[in-house]
């Protein structure tokens, strides 16, 4: 996961689970010949745009913070 800056395992799980739950990450990853790095960064950019965060495509601290806040279970991006 090259887009993860701080490399902590827990953060990896947080990001993956969050994008899977709310940004359709899992389903997009199943397509063939997918550049997983780019897909991940694109999902992060979508999330950062919706949350009004700096759009970096990286799981920077602000993004991780936003992901840890209590939130609604409805996905931000419907399949």
């Amino acid at each position, binding site marked *: 996961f090259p887009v993860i800056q701080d490399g902590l395992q827990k953060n990896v799980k947080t990001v993956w689970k969050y994008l899977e739950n709310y940004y359709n990450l899992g389903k997009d990853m199943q397509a063939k010949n997918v550049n997983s790095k780019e897909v991940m960064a694109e999902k992060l950019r979508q999330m950062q745009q919706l949350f009004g965060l700096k759009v970096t495509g990286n799981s920077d601290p602000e993004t991780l913070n936003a992901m840890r*806040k209590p939130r*609604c*279970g409805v996905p*931000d991006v419907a399949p």
Partner: protein
Amino acid sequence: YAITHNNPRWSKTHLTYSILNYTPYLPRAVVEDAIERAFRVWSDVTPLTFERVFEKEGDIVLSFHRGDHSDLYPFDGSKDHFAHAFLPAPGMGGDVHYDLDQKWTDNSENFNLFYVTAHELGHSLGLSHSNDEEALMYPSYTWSNKDFVLNQDDINRIQALYGPSTNPIQSTGASLDVCNSGLTFDAITTYRGEVIFFKDRFYIRVISFLPEPMINMIDLIWPTLPGKFDAAYESSMVDELRFFKGSKVWAVQEQNVLEGFPMDIHSYFGFPSNVTHIDAAVCEEETGKTYFFVDHMYWRYDENTRSMDPGYPRLIAEDFPGINHKVDDVFQKEDYFYFFYQSIQHRFNLQTRRIDDSGDFSTWFNC
């Protein structure tokens, strides 16, 4: 912000709802009241009406579930995901699900059932998440214990689906019409030469060199202060603003709430215990004396000695002839105290000790 694909909405404006079961954390009546108030958030600003039904399933069913409840969105008792709802559609469409294992509250502790329900009902009616941090439909729950007012972004989007409310009294959301003659204020104070009016969650700054007042949210300057103050005044000798709500007082310097506040007005000013709130307050800059108006009486506090003057409370009407009623708000400008009662202001001349002008407040806003 078009994320919800093809904008699903209900084709009828009268919707029914039913409550399938309850959380063990709140009395039934509290759950029912929270849900009813959450529906009212949306019916206030649209033609939609909601009716609770008992014998049959409503268009919108609200229910509490534990763990996997076979709808692709299992709960897990954690704080990651504890409520969701479905977009308008027959069957499960519109339904709201809560995590049975989550602690639900009716106060500022997590998680407030009213607030989460109001958010989820936004989805039930067809709204997607918003990127406006102040909006109810922002993905993260941003509940605080202030008086809830629906954000303008939420109002715009739900009215884009269903149109405006037919009810003449519109919830103003993030806008406030200061030229509305029926407007009353929660509190008014000066601050470094400006006059600041407070109403609900908004402040209105009148700055002499600006043609129009600046209106914005109190949160933007003082996020930790509650809205709907009872009173406010400037203690200019220490460059402080003091806000009152109930029997509490907050002291701020610029954007910072001073340490130790809120404090109790009884211990801080020496009010007797039967004083439960302050209607209005003003500090006379020349004398350093602060006047506190409560019902038909007033106290006088010496900011220098930090103690109440003896011989108070006294009747307002006795020392301020013409002010024969409760005082809603008061502030000083030059040689005048400006008393506000409902939407009328009286200009009281501190030299002649008489009211020398009365009228409405709109001149402050160049209406």
